[in-house]
């Protein structure tokens, strides 16, 4: 992507975060990038094209995270995933702000994103299964527990940062990791607790 286009994309991301997609005017984006509206129109036909390119970058970054499945053969893999997602959501903070707007007005983006969501939730569920097979997680108390747990973990990953902001609390990587791990910790076996306490970086830090 050309340098100007990239600059425009970054400004668009920032404004989408600060004001919400619905409220941002092309004039604003042009002004803040330091170009004319005409120049902006040359690069991006309309606002929808801008929204698309912003979300394309989101999808691209997310695909990289998806490709990291089970890089580490134990509980540390969760830590790595959570950390990657923390940085992802910090970088693309506009995402959670605009989640309802996308739902309302951009069905194609919504559809693509929902495909990604399905994959990551499956990944979390399979990681849980894998660790259960290794004997570090308890077996499912009820059928469907782990599917539900994977979904809850995913919701928390998405919503923790904005919730902290709303509650006037700090958002740091360590607090984040603790919060997400707290969902998994009740399901650790004694062997799992050992592994968590001795191997997992976030546990060692706090």
């Amino acid at each position, binding site marked *: 992507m050309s340098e100007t286009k990239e600059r425009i994309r970054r400004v668009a991301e920032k404004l989408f975060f600060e004001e919400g997609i619905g409220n941002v005017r092309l004039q604003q984006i042009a002004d803040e990038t330091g170009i004319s509206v005409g120049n902006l129109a040359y690069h991006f036909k309309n606002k929808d094209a801008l929204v698309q390119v912003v979300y394309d970058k989101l999808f691209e970054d997310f695909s990289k995270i998806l490709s990291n499945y089970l890089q580490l053969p134990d509980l540390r893999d969760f830590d790595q995933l959570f950390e990657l997602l923390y940085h992802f959501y910090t970088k693309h903070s506009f995402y959670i702000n605009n989640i309802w707007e996308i739902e309302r007005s951009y069905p194609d983006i919504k559809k693509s994103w929902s495909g990604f969501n399905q994959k990551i939730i499956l990944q979390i569920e399979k990681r849980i299964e894998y660790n259960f*097979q290794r004997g570090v997680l308890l077996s499912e108390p009820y059928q469907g527990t782990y599917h539900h747990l994977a979904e809850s973990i995913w919701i928390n990953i998405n919503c923790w940062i904005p919730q902290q902001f709303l509650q006037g609390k700090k958002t740091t990587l360590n607090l984040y990791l603790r919060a997400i791990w707290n969902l998994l910790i009740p399901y650790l076996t004694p062997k799992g607790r050992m592994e968590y306490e001795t191997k997992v970086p976030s546990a060692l830090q706090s």
Partner: protein
Amino acid sequence: MKIGRHFYSDILDHLNRLQFQETPGIERDLLFLSDEFWLQDTAVVEHITKGKGMYWVGLIFVHSNQPLRFLKRVITGYSDHRKASTSAHYMRRQAAKDQRGTLVINPKSLNFNLN
């Protein structure tokens, strides 16, 4: 390329399984190499037996210096005698260190107790 949910789920299952398959083995399992090393210096003779309607191909391994150290194994069976003997022939040649049979075993070096 669009991947359906079930397919993706299967891929992840497979990746999980791989973790269990390709783990390093235990040293104990490799001891057979050192234990059975003497087989390298054996003379091999084929041995065909009949039983239960089949011709069984067996090999007898005898150590060239210590003839009392030997090993007898039945490898496979065939319903036809010719098949069995061909198989035994090639199997012996493959197993034997000395494939062309040029080594000579000196019977005097073997101390048989004939009592």
